[in-house]
């Protein structure tokens, strides 16, 4: 069984071999071709045969016909002769008449070499006859005829055969038989073929009896003999007859014709043709001939002179088929080879893919490691620089140090960006969902760029519409990153005008930019850009034209007044953030690839402005992760407007926990004098955040009107209480400088106002003349932000600012988390143990230290009192992973046993590790650890890990208790 299977397998294997397949294929196609060739040949021969048959039949028919015609003529002649004999002795015909007549009618007998008439002479009449004729009867051999019963001497003959005159036809064997047969049947009879005299052609003699009187058709032989008076004979030259005939027909040359006398079937006598030996013998056909002599049988045999040639198609077709077969074989072969190639390539590619993926993972690990390694020393550098700045330095030193610090920060941020990008690519970036204050974030961003924008004289402003809730849930860090990126770009590329960030509720999820873009283009083209620009010019923040006209006052105003209610049922808060600048704009050809990573508008950009071009691509990724999208409009030399939407969540948390702004300004009144409505609105927005009621007026008259309270009904001599008057620098210079302080002084003197309002000048740059500085209470430098205003007001109004406890904040929160907690520290190294113990004790935790995994397990035998365990990963004997696994196993055993009991054991285990790469982290989690802390502890990281874990733990315990 197995043997046969093996055998089969062997055969199959053998069949699978390439050479065998090729050979099989070649021989198979050869066989097929030979088959086709043979089939065509047979077909060919069949065709030839049918052709031969038809040709042969045709020839036979014609020959027969012509023969019959001649025979008929001879018959007619015989009757004519008998007519002459009719009751006449001697007959009314003689030699000369006969000769003439036959000569003249010979055209009717083209086949007959000549005709002659022999008279029947019985022995008794011989002498009389001889005397009458004047010659004696001779035999065929021209000798005087011996004594016989009967003679048949030729008396009349055609000129052509006059040599047979006086010859006794009865003397020739053939003729004699002929004569006797003709006489007894009364019909035409033919001799065997024989060589004719003179011409030496093969021929037959045709003989007709001539009767003295009319013979009835049923007369007996005797009667016929008695009535016979003579015989008319003609020599048929069969050879020339057939030759002539064949000449008239097509295809003469190809066909060989033999005519036989087959009266005696066993020995056919040839009448025409070269005999049986020539020609192509395999293919022949015989047609029967009827020459009118019932006694004799003739047939015509036709054959091809040559073997019918092999036709071209019979050769070319199989050859063609063969070629096709070979081609098909080749194609199959090639296809198979290609298939194998492709499979092989696929396999290789698969391998390479695996390698590449491994390399990718290695890359991201490498990136994480390297950036970690870079960040650590960089943090050291920055920390030291911080410390250095706290010492007493002279100007130059301070400058150098600050420069170094800025550079270091830039480097850190670049590393962070690269890390971000790597994280996004590997899908490891997860967005947080924590409550945050969006306005505070925007303020932070503004403060970040304040010095730069001030240096450039660019006005930087933020505005959040009142419809946006104070506290939103989302990822503040990433949100800040997006805005920082966009504003950073704008600051980089803007040298005049303004940068304006404004946040509104998106009306719907649709992105409105596309249509706006269209309209802008349309307007720009149809109305002519000049008048268009002037028309809108003053209504933007700085008065310069912007790419997207949406932040113009006309459009902004309805947004301000409109209280867009959020959908009460939905938690979603769709935001639309616009960052608008009046910078150099983006070249049109570069606009398509703006969000491609490492792509700056053009290569000279990095030379002029620096940067890696990674920011926008990260921004786009982040925006998309937040469920929004980003787009921009940009006109070269006009500016760019980036707009993005994002979906954040509503938060019910109280504002107070996030309130960082002082509350001491609440209830104050302010007047803002600014002719630019957008700018005024921004100032008002910041004032409102401090709780100050503000009124924006366009000029000094309106300001006076507002202050003197013309529009309210108080009209009791006292003016409205105004605490602060804010004036824009440009306005100040034009008309207020002189009139306002004076008027205020007047009012004060006249007692119309109790307190002098504080005059606050808002300026973009620090270049405010000393004169001006003296006449106002304080100068606020843009960009405005609530905390800055608050600080300035505190100074101006002399209010003691609330003491901020910014420092120690983190430390305090860690302390909050850890105080009173009992923690087990596992590390094999005494130094590390002591350090960890010291650090954690500082936060108020109770620490127990052990030096090995085994000790840790024995300490964590249930029940125990530890809240958390900090575990070193690399330890001799039993490493952190193994220890954790055993602890978890222990816990799960106990948990199983206790079953439904409320208390479930799960001690928090945090890995202590120096290299925090994703792989290590994953391994930690897989082993059942809850998180990791860096070693040595970093406050921020420690806080983040602990905050997450303890919060989670508390909530889960709470859930359990319920």
């Amino acid at each position, binding site marked *: 069984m197995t043997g046969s299977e093996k055998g089969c397998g062997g055969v199959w294997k053998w069949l699978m071999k390439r050479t065998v397949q090729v050979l099989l294929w070649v021989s198979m196609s050869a066989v097929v071709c030979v088959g086709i060739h043979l089939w065509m040949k047979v077909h060919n021969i069949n065709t030839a045969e049918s052709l031969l048959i038809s040709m042969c039949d045709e020839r036979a028919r014609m020959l027969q016909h012509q023969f019959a015609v001649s025979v008929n003529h001879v018959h007619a002649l015989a009757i004519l002769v008998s007519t002459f004999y009719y009751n006449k002795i001697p007959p009314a015909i003689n030699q000369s008449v006969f000769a003439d007549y036959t000569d003249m009618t010979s055209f009717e007998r083209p086949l007959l070499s000549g005709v002659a008439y022999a008279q029947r002479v019985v022995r008794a009449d011989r002498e009389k006859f001889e005397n009458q004729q004047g010659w004696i009867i001779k035999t065929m051999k021209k000798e005087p005829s011996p004594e016989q019963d009967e003679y048949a001497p030729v008396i009349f003959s055609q000129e052509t055969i006059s040599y047979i005159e006086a010859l006794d036809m009865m003397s020739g064997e053939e003729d004699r038989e002929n004569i006797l047969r003709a006489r007894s049947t009364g019909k035409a009879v033919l001799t065997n073929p024989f060589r004719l005299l003179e011409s030496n052609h093969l021929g037959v003699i045709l003989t007709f009896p001539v009767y003295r009187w009319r013979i009835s058709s049923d007369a007996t032989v005797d009667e016929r003999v008695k009535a016979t008076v003579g015989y008319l004979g003609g020599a048929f030259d069969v050879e020339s007859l057939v030759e002539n005939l064949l000449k008239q027909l097509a295809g003469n040359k190809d066909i060989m014709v033999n005519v036989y006398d087959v009266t005696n079937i066993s020995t056919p006598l040839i009448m025409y043709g070269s005999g049986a030996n020539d020609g192509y013998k395999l293919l022949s056909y015989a047609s029967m001939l009827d020459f009118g002599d019932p006694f004799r049988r003739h047939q015509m045999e036709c054959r091809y002179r040559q073997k019918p040639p092999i036709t071209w198609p019979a050769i070319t077709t199989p050859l063609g088929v063969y070629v096709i077969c070979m081609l098909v074989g080749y194609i199959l072969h090639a296809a198979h080879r290609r298939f194998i190639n492709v499979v092989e390539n696929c396999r290789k590619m698969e391998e390479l893919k695996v390698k590449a993926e491994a390399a990718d993972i290695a890359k991201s690990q490498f990136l994480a490691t390297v950036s970690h390694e870079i960040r650590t020393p960089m*943090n*050291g550098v920055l*920390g*030291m620089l911080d*410390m*250095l700045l706290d*010492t007493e330095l002279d100007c130059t030193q301070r400058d150098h140090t600050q420069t170094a610090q800025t550079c270091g920060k830039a480097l850190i941020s670049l590393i962070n960006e690269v890390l971000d990008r790597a994280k996004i690519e590997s899908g490891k970036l997860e967005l947080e969902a924590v409550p945050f204050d969006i306005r505070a974030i925007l303020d932070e961003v503004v403060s970040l760029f304040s010095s730069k924008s001030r240096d450039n004289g660019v006005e930087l402003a933020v505005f959040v519409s009142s419809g946006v809730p104070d506290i939103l849930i989302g990822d503040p860090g990433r949100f800040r990153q997006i805005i920082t990126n966009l504003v950073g770009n704008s600051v980089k590329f803007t040298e005049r005008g303004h940068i304006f960030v404004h946040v509104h509720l998106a009306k719907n999820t649709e992105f409105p930019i596309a249509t706006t873009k269209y309209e802008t283009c349309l307007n720009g083209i149809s109305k002519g850009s000049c008048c268009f620009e002037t028309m809108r010019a003053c209504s933007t923040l700085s008065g310069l034209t912007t790419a997207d006209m949406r932040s113009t006052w006309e459009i902004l105003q309805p947004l301000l007044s409109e209280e867009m209610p959020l959908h009460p049922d939905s938690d979603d808060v769709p935001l639309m953030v616009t960052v608008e600048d009046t910078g150099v704009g983006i070249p049109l050809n570069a606009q398509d690839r703006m969000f491609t990573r490492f792509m700056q508008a053009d290569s000279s950009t990095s030379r002029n402005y620096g940067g890696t071009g990674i920011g926008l691509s990260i921004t786009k990724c982040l925006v998309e992760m937040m469920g929004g999208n980003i787009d921009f409009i940009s006109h070269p030399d006009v500016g760019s407007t980036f707009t993005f939407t994002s979906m954040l969540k509503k938060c019910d948390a109280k504002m107070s926990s996030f309130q960082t702004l002082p509350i001491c300004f609440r209830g104050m009144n302010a007047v803002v004098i600014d002719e630019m409505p957008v700018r005024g609105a921004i100032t008002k927005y910041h004032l409102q955040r401090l709780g100050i009621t503000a009124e924006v007026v366009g000029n000094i008259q309106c300001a006076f009107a507002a202050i003197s309270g013309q529009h309210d009904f108080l009209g009791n001599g006292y003016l409205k209480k105004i605490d602060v008057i804010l004036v824009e620098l440009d306005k100040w210079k034009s008309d207020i400088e002189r009139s306002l302080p004076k008027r205020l002084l007047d009012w004060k003197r006249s007692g119309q106002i109790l307190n002098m309002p504080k005059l606050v000048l808002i300026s973009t740059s620090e270049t405010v003349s000393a004169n001006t500085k003296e006449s106002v209470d304080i100068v606020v430098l843009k960009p405005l932000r609530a905390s800055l205003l608050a600080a300035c007001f505190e100074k101006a109004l002399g209010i003691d600012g609330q003491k901020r406890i910014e420092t120690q904040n983190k430390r305090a929160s860690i302390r909050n988390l850890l105080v009173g907690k009992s923690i087990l520290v596992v590390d094999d*190294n*005494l*130094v*590390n143990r*002591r*350090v*960890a113990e*010291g*650090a954690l*004790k*500082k936060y108020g935790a109770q620490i127990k230290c052990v030096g090995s995994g085994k000790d840790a397990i024995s300490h964590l035998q249930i029940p125990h009192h530890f809240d958390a365990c900090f575990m*070193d990963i*690399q330890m*001799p004997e039993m490493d952190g992973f193994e220890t954790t696994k055993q602890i978890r196993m222990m816990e799960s055993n106990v948990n199983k046993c206790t079953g439904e009991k409320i208390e479930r054991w799960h001690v928090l285990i945090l890995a202590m590790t*120096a290299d925090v790469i994703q792989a290590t982290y994953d391994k930690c989690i897989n082993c059942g650890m809850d998180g990791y802390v860096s*070693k*040595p502890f970093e406050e921020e990281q420690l806080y983040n890990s602990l905050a997450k874990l303890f919060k989670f733990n508390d909530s889960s315990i709470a859930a359990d208790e319920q």
Partner: protein
Amino acid sequence: MDAKLLQRELLELTTRVLEEGVIDKQFLEIQTLRDEDNPNFTDEVVALFFEDAQKLINEITKALEQGQNYVDFGKISADAHQLKGISASVGAKRITDLCIAFRGFCDQLISEGSLQQLHYEFSLTKNKIESIFKLEKQILAAGGMLPGM
């Protein structure tokens, strides 16, 4: 000497040592960990560190000198890792860095030079830290306050 003057000197010394990279911020952290209950915390930890580090360095040296033919790089690597861990804990920056480099070398060969450098860095670190401690003691003797207390 005046306590103030000494304090200034201490600050300068600390800054210099920080600049040289012998120690890093972690050392300052350690310094802040001492309090009234445990005033000798820093001394204690650093002494432990010196002891352990000396031990480890000796181990490494021994392992390298032990055989011409066979060197147990696994052990050296583990020791170097240990050394790195404890030096990072006390903030002995240069030793930490050297250990990282050391572990990188282990796959190939540790040159005699790098070992010597390790010895050198260790004595340097020890020197510096001891001088810091000396100054601190002087300050305490002069009735001054130490940073972090």
